[in-house]
């Protein structure tokens, strides 16, 4: 009797392990499948409601974190801290949303988003819990015109790209994800390279494969390169702000052909984003 029970347990365990490997093999690299689309469609409205209901609690916890962070800074930042505290403690979500939307409109008006792209605004409703997968789920999907490979921005700059879509939601892989690579250039020098993540640190990106003969300086801005040629073009439009160069030692540039970049967008704290639909999806 006991042996039979042990055998059954082992069989279930083996089945689960084999099942995991089979699922991983079948679904890896194939985007979203019917099952995921179905589950996501069922849970999207629930997630949206849960997201809205838990926002005040999230703001409160994040306020503590921000306050702790800000305590160590000098008096020059006191005013900013007060403003942030007012936003968080007052739970004035509408004010924060308004500011984010204004920044997005400014980005549109400022000419950063070229013609031919139709921005679709979405809200982050879920986020990956592990440091290895930097992706978020937004509440805009194929029903809103969102498609795979559409670039995603917020008011500060480039955030990531759409990697899977369902009817009412989409998965956005952030530029801090280990699978991300964005062709970029340093302005005004025009030095080109590829923005790669430094996995585990969303506040630090690496501009790799740069021309080591041209020296990049700290503080210079990095934007998307948006190349085009031989019938194909980059999925990212040119000149979308990405970040600014933080460390650019000559030794690192010459030896490793890379510099470190801080993204303009706060990738840990995303709320409203815009998907640029209608562009190249090569």
């Amino acid at each position, binding site marked *: 009797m006991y042996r039979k029970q042990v055998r059954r*347990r082992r069989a*279930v*365990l083996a089945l*689960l*392990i084999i*099942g*995991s*490997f*089979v*699922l*991983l*093999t*079948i*679904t*890896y*690299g194939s985007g*979203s499948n019917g*099952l*995921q689309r179905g*589950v*996501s469609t069922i*849970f999207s409205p*629930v*997630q949206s409601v*849960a*997201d809205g209901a*838990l926002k005040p609690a*999230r703001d409160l*916890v*994040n306020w503590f*974190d921000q306050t*702790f*962070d800000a305590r160590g800074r000098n008096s020059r930042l006191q005013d900013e801290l007060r403003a942030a505290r007012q936003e968080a403690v007052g739970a004035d979500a509408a004010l924060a949303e308004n500011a984010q939307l204004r920044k997005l409109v400014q980005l549109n008006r400022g000419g950063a988003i070229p013609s031919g792209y139709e921005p679709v605004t979405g809200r*982050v*409703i*879920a*986020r*990956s*819990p*592990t*440091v*290895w*997968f930097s*992706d978020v*789920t937004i509440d805009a999907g194929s029903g809103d015109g969102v498609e795979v490979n559409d670039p995603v921005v917020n008011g500060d700059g480039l955030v990531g790209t759409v*990697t*899977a879509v*369902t009817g009412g939601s989409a*998965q956005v892989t952030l530029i801090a994800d*280990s699978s991300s690579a964005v062709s970029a250039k340093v302005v005004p020098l025009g030095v080109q390279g590829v923005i*790669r*993540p*430094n*996995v*585990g*640190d969303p506040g*630090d990106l*690496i501009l790799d494969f740069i021309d080591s003969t041209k020296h990049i300086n700290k503080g210079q801005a990095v934007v998307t390169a948006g190349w085009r040629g031989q019938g194909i073009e980059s999925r990212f439009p040119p000149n979308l702000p990405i970040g600014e160069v933080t460390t650019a030692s000559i030794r690192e540039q010459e030896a490793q052909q890379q510099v470190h970049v801080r993204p303009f967008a706060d990738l*840990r*704290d995303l709320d409203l984003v815009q998907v640029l639909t209608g562009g190249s999806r090569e």
Partner: protein
Amino acid sequence: MILTPKIFARLVAIVVLGVLLQLSFFSQVAVFHVSPDLLPVLVISLGLLGGTMTGAVTGFSVGFLLDCLLIEPLGGASLVLLATGYLAGLFRERFEIHSPLVPPLLCMGLTLFAELGFGAVELMLGVDTAVSGLVVRDLLVKSIYAFVLGWPIYLGLKRLLRPALIEESTVRRPRRPTVLGA
């Protein structure tokens, strides 16, 4: 664990609520720049209460739902969380939980195991970019959060699943015989 339809429904509700709470709340808050991970704690607690099979099956289910909702390749999170739940269950079957510190300490250790597991799966799928040293900080702080979350979650689940739990019967020591006239 004695699995009746009512208990099964409770387990399903726990899994669904846990995943939704993780995605909508815990993943989106940062304390000291690190988001707590509730799901390994949930799976470990269920493993400690129900044994290897409960731990493995709920771990697989939590991982599967998580991958579905995040539109990630299916199977990665399931594999890691089923191993985590199985190990917690194995502990319950081999040893006695004699101190209130055992569940939170196990949550801490096995959460670290789960986070390393997620990293291993990601490396298995291929990471051809730099990995920051901050990953280590993230793993350690997440384990500390698991220690803090471990005890209330374990107790809450124990209360919720009490009718299904097979409690160790209290072993009564035989009384010493009284020697009359001694």
